[in-house]
């Protein structure tokens, strides 16, 4: 049937596995043990036949080009193929369907879930055998148990119902490493995993085993890795951080708001924490060190330094200009804080003021001096109460001398660990 080049035919891996492999004269050479696939194309091609030869312990490999024809019952080889068997060798861009995929877990990047592979759907097109779908369904399990037809007949007879197919296209599949020492082999055509929402990636990583957790984490870019780390169960931080090179981790941390990075750092063992801080860029490192001084569970430990504070004599026009010049991303832009020469907090002014008031007016006259503020040493429960009572979206944090140290946003307090509240 493979002599007709246009023929398209679907096959399941379970239908091929274990089938006799026969030479051009019809003698049985061995059994089909596996298929090797070269990743990189949308629907990757089977390049190599893996055969368990008679009376030989080791598996032998044979190029797909040596296959004459293939059907649900046997695999026939071209003349002279027997002499072209080689020892099995798996390259970086290659996977074995049975060894690396069948019965293993994969990431379904369409549904943002981890699934177990019950069967693999292959397509013969133009003499090539290609991987097109992965079967996650009960049908796949029944097919491999050899009772799909019986069950189908039964459910049709009794309920007039057929079990549903559960296929996912190969392009949405990210295989995981079955051997903890091996690296992840990327389904390079898509890199769909990267496009998922970080909280979905975090959920996926939480469900994986240790080895795959760190390999999936390693393949994320810095920004995605940073967001994923923040979304993840903090209990997993340490094991992920320990299995990732320090330089990369500090780069990932630098992608975060300093207060978020501080939260993660604060839970690490002292030695690890110090080493990570040392590898950070200077200005970022100073901010983090300052934030780390505050005890965990206090306002100081969760506050952020990203706020705008201006002197009371600044005019509205100058304040707008200042606002325009602030290029780094702010966590929130609802308020500007007004201080004196020594950075003592005097009042607050809203963006609304900047837009509506006379451009020559100075901040000191427009500001609201009646401030609700938190002290650096206040515990989080107290801060949470302030937020609940006054319904602010952010709150300034001052030290004992009333010097403005930072702000806490509503989001910071929502994300705080429940046991500290």
């Amino acid at each position, binding site marked *: 049937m493979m002599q007709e080049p246009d023929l398209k035919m679907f096959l399941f891996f379970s239908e091929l596995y274990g089938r006799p492999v026969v030479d051009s004269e019809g003698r049985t050479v061995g059994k089909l043990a596996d298929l090797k696939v070269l990743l990189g194309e949308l629907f990757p091609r089977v390049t190599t036949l893996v055969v368990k030869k008679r009376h030989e312990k080791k598996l032998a490999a044979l190029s797909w080009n040596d296959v004459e024809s293939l059907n649900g019952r046997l695999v026939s080889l071209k003349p002279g193929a027997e002499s072209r068997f080689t020892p099995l060798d798996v390259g970086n861009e290659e996977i074995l369907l049975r060894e690396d995929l069948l*019965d293993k877990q994969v990431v379904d990047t369409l549904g943002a879930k981890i699934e*177990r592979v019950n069967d693999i759907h292959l397509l013969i097109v133009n003499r090539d055998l290609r991987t097109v779908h992965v079967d996650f369904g009960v049908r796949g*399990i029944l097919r491999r*148990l050899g009772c799909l037809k019986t069950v189908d007949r039964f459910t049709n007879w009794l309920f007039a119902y057929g079990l549903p197919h559960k296929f996912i296209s190969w392009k949405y599949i990210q295989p995981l490493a*079955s051997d903890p*020492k091996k690296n992840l082999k990327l389904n390079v055509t898509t890199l769909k995993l990267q496009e998922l929402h970080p909280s979905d990636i975090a959920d996926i990583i939480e469900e994986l*085993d240790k080895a795959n957790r760190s390999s999936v984490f390693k393949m994320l870019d810095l920004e995605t890795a940073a967001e994923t780390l923040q979304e993840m169960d903090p209990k*997993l931080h340490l*094991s992920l951080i*320990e299995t990732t090179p320090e330089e990369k981790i500090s780069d990932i941390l630098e992608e975060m708001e300093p207060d978020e990075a501080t939260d993660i750092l604060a839970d690490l063992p002292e030695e690890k924490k110090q080493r990570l801080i040392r590898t950070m860029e200077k200005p970022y490192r100073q901010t983090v060190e300052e934030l780390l001084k505050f005890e965990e569970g206090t306002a100081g430990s969760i506050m952020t330094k990203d706020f705008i504070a201006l002197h009371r004599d600044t005019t509205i026009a100058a304040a707008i200009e200042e606002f325009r010049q602030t290029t780094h991303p702010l966590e929130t832009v609802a308020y500007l804080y007004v201080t004196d020469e020594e950075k003592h907090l005097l009042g607050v002014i809203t963006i609304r003021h900047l837009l509506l008031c006379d451009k020559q007016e100075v901040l000191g006259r427009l500001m609201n001096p009646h401030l609700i503020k938190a002290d650096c040493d206040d515990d989080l429960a107290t801060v949470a109460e302030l937020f609940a009572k006054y319904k602010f979206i952010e709150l300034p944090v001052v030290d004992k001398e009333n010097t403005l140290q930072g702000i806490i946003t509503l989001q910071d307090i929502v994300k705080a660990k429940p046991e500290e509240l």
Partner: protein
Amino acid sequence: MKGFDLRRRWKGFVLFIAVAGPGIITSNVDNDAGGIATYSMAGSHFGYQLLWSLIPIMVALVIIQEMSARMGVITGKGLSDLIRERFGVKVTVYVLVGVVLTNFGNVIAEFAGIASSLEIFHLSKYVSVPIGAVLVWLLVVKGTYRSVEKIFLYACLFYVTYIISGFLSRPDWGEIGKSLVRPEFDLSSGRLGMIIGLVGTTIAPWMQFYLQASVVEKNIMTKNYKLSRLDVIAGSIVVTVVAGFIVLTCGATLFKAGILVETAADAALALKPLAGKYCSALFAFGLLNASLFAASILPLSTAFLVCEGMGWETGVNKKFSEAPQFYGLYSFLIFLGAGIILLPNIPLFSVMYISQIINGIVLPAILVFMLLLINNKKLMGEYANKRAYNAISWATVAILCILTIAYVVSLIT
């Protein structure tokens, strides 16, 4: 220097408490209704004579549980997960069917325990069992996992009641010491059957799945594995001490008085006139707690291991529609298990007994899979079994196989 040393030791202790749990919890769940029934019978039929057998049982328990914990820490995967990935879907389905049937037998036994413990307080099984089933079901489905685990942890403290009731019964310590130091190896068929019963209840197949899953859930790092091993050893000692005290209590009272116990509830009732009403109440309370504890863990653990092996969604934090197989199997095990106990005139004792037979038959098979997996270098790397360790563990499996076969043969003949 001394202060530093103390602090380091304290830090080690705190870390141990944090990692501790899976081993200790598993071992305590192991002292379930079936276990208590068997231990009581051992004490009432043979006095202190079989106490020695708990020592080799403890050694086997430590070895087997250590392997479960090690596999959990190193691979980060559950046992059914590993069996599926290594041996394929066919083998997995057979193993899972066997394990589900075995565990279902144990679930029924737990509800038998609930029924018989509350009959001591004159509560009919038609009231106690349905309430127990709903309670257990809600505990897991509606409670958050964290609070559920805390309830389980506190529940472990109730096992002290066995030790208290043991002391209240004033045993003869000299005689106990003698039977431990110089045991009589009189292996008549009655004694052999009892020893096999003790092995079967103490080392159950479900424990290996449950322990490994809990270790994975805890996400213990490889470098902290030593603490996890400590936890398993501590748990195995705890389970043996509790089992020993049940045997001892029954030996000190029932055996001396010539009362033969047929069920654990009998044991509690028989203790009433001998050691005062408190001892009986404690025993009943302990049995109820043990049954409830195991009844909430067994169906959950079974649903977990099946869904994990088959690749279905799991987790108590998922909605029913997200994990239908998980909740379906979980609910089915509880309500069918409880329903069977509600059948009029069901012989509770035979039910517990049959569940132990199936336990015994399935156990060696599970152990063989465990040993094949833990010797897989690709999976375990440098943490695969060493040769000496392998010799001991294969020998344990062989002895268990022989005992199991002998057990089955003795039941047939």
